[in-house]
């Protein structure tokens, strides 16, 4: 990089400073901790309408279910795009060249992996009761699935299966929404009785939805990580 272009670097810095000033000035106007909590209050008042002990879950899967669907679609789009990018002209060398991390890690991971899976599934299943849920649990599941790949340096990711999981979970999510539609209710309207708040079997279809979200997130992330690992071959240049 030439000297002259270096000397131009002060503009972004200056304007970043300006941006910081203006943003801070803007947010300083807002009464912190006492914002207009209009919708939040309404949801609070509606109380256990959906039967979810965790109100965030009620928002994520109930009130703003369409957002969640969109977000699943984004993950799906990202995974598909990444697959497209990396498989585009890749030489068909699917084997991974690294030698693994050694005996110690392999053993540790084979111990850790079931535990991680368990934790992941627990977080997913209790999403409607406690902080956590499909995304968080899904990430843990993805990591659990991915660790052996890192440690052993060999493929355990079955892309075929993952495609089925990601596609199927997403499709089921929509189909549950459509099921409500068929019953004459609105799209994505929670079905089944809300049940008693706080119980494991409560909140109608919300736990099911969260399970699907968990599966899908786990599958997508595993697929993404898999794609990246498979393709990380610095030697391949055109």
């Amino acid at each position, binding site marked *: 990089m030439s000297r002259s272009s270096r000397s131009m670097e002060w503009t*972004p810095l200056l*304007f970043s400073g*300006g*941006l910081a000033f*203006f943003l801070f000035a*803007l947010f300083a106007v807002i009464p912190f901790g006492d914002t207009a909590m209009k919708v939040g209050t309404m949801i609070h008042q509606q109380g256990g309408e959906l039967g979810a002990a965790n109100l965030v879950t009620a928002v994520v899967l109930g009130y703003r279910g369409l957002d969640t669907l969109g977000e699943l679609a984004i993950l799906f789009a990202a995974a598909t795009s990444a697959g497209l990018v990396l498989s585009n002209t890749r030489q068909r060398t699917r084997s991974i060249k690294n030698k693994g991390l050694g005996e110690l890690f392999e053993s540790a991971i084979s111990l850790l992996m079931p535990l991680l899976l368990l934790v992941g599934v627990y977080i997913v299943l209790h999403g409607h009761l406690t902080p956590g849920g499909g995304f968080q649990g899904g990430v843990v599941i993805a990591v659990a699935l991915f660790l052996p790949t890192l440690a052993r340096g060999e493929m355990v990711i079955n892309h075929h299966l993952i495609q089925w999981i990601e596609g199927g979970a997403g499709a089921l999510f929509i189909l549950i929404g459509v099921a409500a539609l068929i019953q004459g209710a609105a799209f994505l309207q929670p079905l089944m009785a809300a049940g008693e708040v706080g119980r494991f079997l409560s909140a109608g279809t919300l736990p099911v939805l969260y399970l699907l979200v968990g599966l899908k997130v786990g599958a997508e992330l595993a697929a993404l990580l898999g794609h990246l690992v498979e393709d990380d071959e610095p030697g391949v240049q055109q």
Partner: protein
Amino acid sequence: MEINTLDLLALISLVTVATALLVGGQGRGGWQLSLLYLLQLVVVASMVMMAGGEGIISTLQFSTVGESIGWRLDGLGLYFLLITVGTAAFVSFYMAGPWGEAYQRDGGSLRWLQVALATNVFTMLLLLASGDLLSLFIGWELASWAAFWMMALAGGIALKVALRYLIYAMVGAMMVFALIVILYGQAGSFGFDEIREASVQMERGTTILVLLLTVAGFGIKMGLLPFHLWQAPAYAETPGPGSAFLGAISSRLGLFAILLVLFRVVDGAWIELYLGFMNPQTLLAWIAVATIIFPTFTAMRQNDARQLLAWHGIGQGGYMLLGIAMMDPLGVAGGMLHIFNHATYQAALFLAVTAVIYRTQTSDLNHLGGLVVRMPLTFATMLVGIIGLAGLPPMNGFVSKWLVYRSLLEQGEVLLFVGAVIGTLGTILSVYKLLHNTFLGSLRLEHQAVREVPITMWMPMILLSGLILLTGIFPGVPLQWVAEAAASIGLPMPQFNLGGVIAEGGSLDMRVISGVLLSGFAIAALIFYGAGSSRRVNPLDNYAGGHFLYASNRYHYSNNFYAGLMHLIKPWYRGIFERLEQIILLLLAVIADLLQGLYLQRQPGRVALVVLVLLLWWSTL
């Protein structure tokens, strides 16, 4: 529904376009087109006979986007239309024969040329018959684009110069667009009468703006200084007779529109307006004089016959505006009459040059000469044409120029008069160059086998020559049409009769002048032939400075004609307008590259950040 003559004319014009599409490509088959143009001419002539009053209102009226669009042909439009259709008839007849076949052999498409011609005529009809500002603009745009099409047909360099025309024309069209929406804003309507009513109360600033937009917007098409650069190259590169058509009438449309807007659409109060240094009338006159002088002397510098003629076309436009700007009876008559006269001799000259190109494949004045012995009819046409262009009796150009000069002197505008005379001087010098370098001197070896052009080509030329002479001797006929045109926009006209104008300070009767002149010629011819002392020799049978001349060293110096004069002019003429155009474009290009640089940044987020911070700053102010 009753169809009146205007509808009939439009219909025939459309049929002409369709016919051109069908049979325009067949060389001789294209004569049907000439017939159709003749038919149009007959209709127009019948309208001229019955003209007067309100004009002919087309039964075709639209109402779109809440505005009504209508067409009406009155004296002014009729006058221009007569010239348009007449020229088209000559030109299409000229094209249809052997010239067209040769054109197609060279890879041109005669069909599209014919279609373009017919489209031009139709769009001009739309423009000339416009009944409100909206139809005026529509006609204006369509005519501009049709002209572009005709210019660009040949491709290559022609397309390049046509694109240059396009940009000038678009600048003009956008000014006109601004003009019509401003006038609309004043009156709430596009109708002429409504706007005239509203324009009485126009503010001073608005009036000046309207004047400026009218003269500049329409003036671009007319080639008024400083917007003239596009015209000569564009017309010169238009294929063959097409240049005759465009040169004869296309750029006059600008004048038509200026007349229409300034005298018909807008109230005449603008004439008294004082702009701080002079009144608009004087300013127009000075622009006109500048338009006479600069292009005329540029024409003199040209070494290509078509370029030379095309540059003259710009200069002659100046005479028309100059005459009309005087706004007295003689000036108006002269300026308006010059439109017709110019169309006739310009068409004749372009056709003659096209004939020369047809036979010799070149229009380079440095590579021609002596063709008079091979192409006498073409020579005769060009002779008549340049006499008309130079404004000498007994051709029609003399009449109109005389009227303009007369008006200038009567108004006491001595400086303007001197300017116009300088222009005429340049005209005479340069048209002589044209005639001399093409037809006089010794014939070139490579042109020994050249023959006269076929009848389909020389006939229109001779007919046009006859027209130039006849309307020169009997200017009363076209003056009758001019009178109708002037009446329809409320301009004054002098008394006139068949032979010329009856004015207080001294009348002009071309019958007398021509009679005297022709008898002089007759006497000279009698002496020349009667004395019988002349001897016919071979042009090569000649000697100079004691040397005998052979075919290889020619006694005909056409190369670098007027070298001494050019040397004199050179310090005064550095192509300032060309430079100006270059500078503007360069500036624009620099700005454009800077702006494009915004999109080519290595880190495009920078612009976003800067804009964001500036906007936030502005919002918190």
